[in-house]
């Protein structure tokens, strides 16, 4: 199996790019947005289809990609043309800059900048809130993230296949992590095995980096410093994710080292099955939270379901967002990581994360291991 890069850095497939760009333009039209300025890497990737250098952690807003409604033109922040498709011409590429005034000059060069009435961004910083009006003097600045979320929420078939390929890789990396897992091995060495397998397979970018942790028998949610050696009987969570071709795949399993905790793990399997059964097409997403209530288990501090796709994606179903869950529907075409979490004092925790695509017929697991 290989990743997406082989020996050349290539843009995303033409059909995928075209379909995504069309959706983004349709969402812009519906919101009356003339120019969309994207800072979030996943939004830029969605529109431009260009792999750029990955770094970890959130980034403050900077104009990384500009989409013009009237022409469909894309302007992209990249100092070179590697991985840039021919539909983004050289004169639409702009280089890395540390000088905000140079960025303003670039934006002034976007066709229609002087007259654009509505300019959308996907988030903002105080600095760019001050600077953008210098490039778009006639514009009102509006929410462009909502438009992108609508475009991205339900996946195209091609996108589902991209996510599926990412999930297959995660499973392969988790298998490598399981092989490493043994009494006396530190958590971080298990994480290291996951990362090594990922890179060997052609993908060098994880979606999360806390792959393996020994669950606590004393606290419902606690990860150690990674240096603790695994002991007989520990319940160890293996939770991995990769970003392959921009798309995230995520899977988690829990292993009882040396066996044991059979009843507890059986209950975790029941919870997982109940969560999957609650994935009814068109049903309220709050049904997922109800499953925890029925089980008499508090939901985890992390979302019970969250979108998989390019980066931040809907739905986000969490105990702290009850209204959102009540109003959200599990629409066919949504893809999400479904999280089962149980903890018992003196035993530890069991976590399952299953990547699921909603279809008209029900949930379909994207893992190869269907059990």
């Amino acid at each position: 199996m290989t990743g997406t890069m082989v020996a050349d850095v290539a843009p995303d497939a033409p059909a995928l790019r075209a379909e995504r760009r069309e959706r983004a333009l349709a969402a812009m039209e519906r919101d009356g947005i003339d120019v969309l300025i994207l800072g979030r890497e996943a939004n830029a990737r969605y529109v431009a289809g260009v792999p750029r250098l990955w770094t970890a952690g959130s980034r403050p807003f900077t104009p990384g990609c500009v989409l013009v409604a009237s022409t469909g033109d894309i302007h992209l922040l990249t100092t070179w043309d590697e991985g840039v498709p021919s539909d983004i011409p050289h004169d639409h590429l702009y280089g890395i800059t540390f000088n905000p005034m140079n960025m303003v000059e670039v934006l002034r060069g976007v066709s229609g900048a002087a007259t654009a009435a509505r300019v959308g961004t996907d988030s903002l910083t105080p600095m760019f809130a001050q600077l953008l009006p210098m490039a778009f003097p006639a514009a009102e600045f509006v929410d462009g993230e909502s438009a992108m979320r609508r475009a991205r929420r339900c996946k195209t078939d091609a996108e589902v296949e991209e996510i599926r390929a990412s999930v297959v890789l995660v499973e392969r990396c988790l298998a490598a992590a399981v092989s490493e897992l043994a009494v006396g091995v530190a958590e971080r060495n298990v994480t290291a095995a996951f990362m090594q397998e990922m890179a060997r397979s052609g993908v060098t970018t994880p979606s999360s980096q806390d792959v393996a942790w020994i669950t606590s028998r004393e606290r419902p949610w606690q990860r150690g410093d990674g240096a603790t050696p695994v002991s007989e009987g520990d319940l160890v969570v293996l939770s991995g994710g990769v970003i392959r071709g921009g798309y995230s795949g995520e899977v988690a399993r829990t292993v009882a080292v040396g066996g044991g905790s059979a009843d507890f793990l059986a209950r975790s399997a029941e919870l997982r099955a109940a969560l999957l059964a609650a994935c009814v097409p068109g049903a309220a997403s709050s049904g997922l939270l109800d499953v925890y209530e029925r089980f008499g288990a508090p939901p985890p501090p992390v979302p019970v379901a969250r979108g998989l796709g390019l980066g931040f994606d809907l739905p986000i179903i969490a105990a702290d967002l009850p209204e959102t869950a009540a109003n959200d529907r599990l629409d066919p075409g949504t893809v999400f990581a479904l999280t089962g979490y149980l903890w018992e004092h003196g035993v530890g925790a069991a976590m399952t994360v299953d990547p699921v695509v909603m279809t008209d017929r029900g949930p379909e697991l994207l893992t190869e291991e269907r059990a």
Partner: protein
Amino acid sequence: MPAGLMERVAPASVPSTVDVGAMRADRIAKVRANMADQGLDALVLLGNTNVVYATGATWPLGDPGRANFEQPVAVVLADDEWPHLFTPVPDSIDGCGLPADHVHPAVYLDLDEGARSFNRRLAELLPPGGSVGVDEWTFAMARECAWLRSSGRIRDGGKVISKSKVIKTPDEIAGIREALRITEQAIAVVEKSLASGVRQIDLTATFLRAVFEAGADANTLDPIWQVMPPTMEDGPWTTHGDLACPLLTTERELQRGDVLWVDTSITHRGFHSDFGRTWIVGDEPTARQEAQFDRWQEIMTAVLAVTRSGAAYADLTAAARSVTHGHTPWMSHFYLGHGLGIDAAEMPFVGSDLGQAFDDSHRLEAGMVLVLEPLVWDDGAAGYRAEEVVLITDDGWEPMTDYHYDPFGRTR
């Protein structure tokens, strides 16, 4: 000279371990002083590294897309010595000592309900009519959080953090040194594996395995092992006609004699590292390549000779150019030097496109950690690039690492 430039490797002023409590207290005092300067009653911070700095909480940084929903948020109040932390990862506070009543469940600021709930909780903390600075915001916040425009306009809270973090405390310097040490331990393993037929991704696989085993919390830069073309013309088109670098790692197989420019960064307990060297695959450098390295050392030596507290950034750029007859010996889309610590690249930026006037008017200060990254491009035979990390002191600088330059300079 190798083993030479960076031989004084243990600044006596740096403790061997980080006192997290003292570090947090130092930081929050600086942050509150800078808030007072700007007339801010509260700071709301969303940026991952800003939250790490203000609270001392750490967690393994994820993909930037994932970071938008798994986003700890910090609130710093002018009259409170403890910051508040809203976090989806409750164990991120382990070791940072925040009182329990300052730790709150996650807020989802990308969603209207999340922003509304944050707004309610913030109202309980903020003085009525208080002035709030923020580093960035979502449109859900713009809809739900009236305090965003509490003083008629949105106030920049990010600047408070950039200003506070630029001078490192002894504990922070110890933390950065540990991140550098972990990185170099892994790099040494990668260096041993370097051979013809190995793919670039294999170097990444070896690096990731070794760096996590060595104790890294997260890898923070998709590692760069760029094969440099002999001439610039053989590389990709660029917007500025200068070198294309860094280019992404692929499954490309390395060949004997390939010139690799290496660049990596990780985090450990909230501190970033940076590493840069030039390697040659399966071969010794030619005389011409050794000459490139000699020239690079001349540039580095000239720059370090003027590097001290009080030096204008322009003193360093002029020193570098004095060796190259006025030509700019660093990547024009980056800089001659950048700060390091809480972020992989932070203030100060020396020799960037902020321009000559900026470099003339800004000065180094003791306690800054500076990564110097000059390069020598020798069209027809690629070039040499490496990075050195130094601590700025009152009378000069101290090295932060002592990693060797192999395979360069070994014959002398």
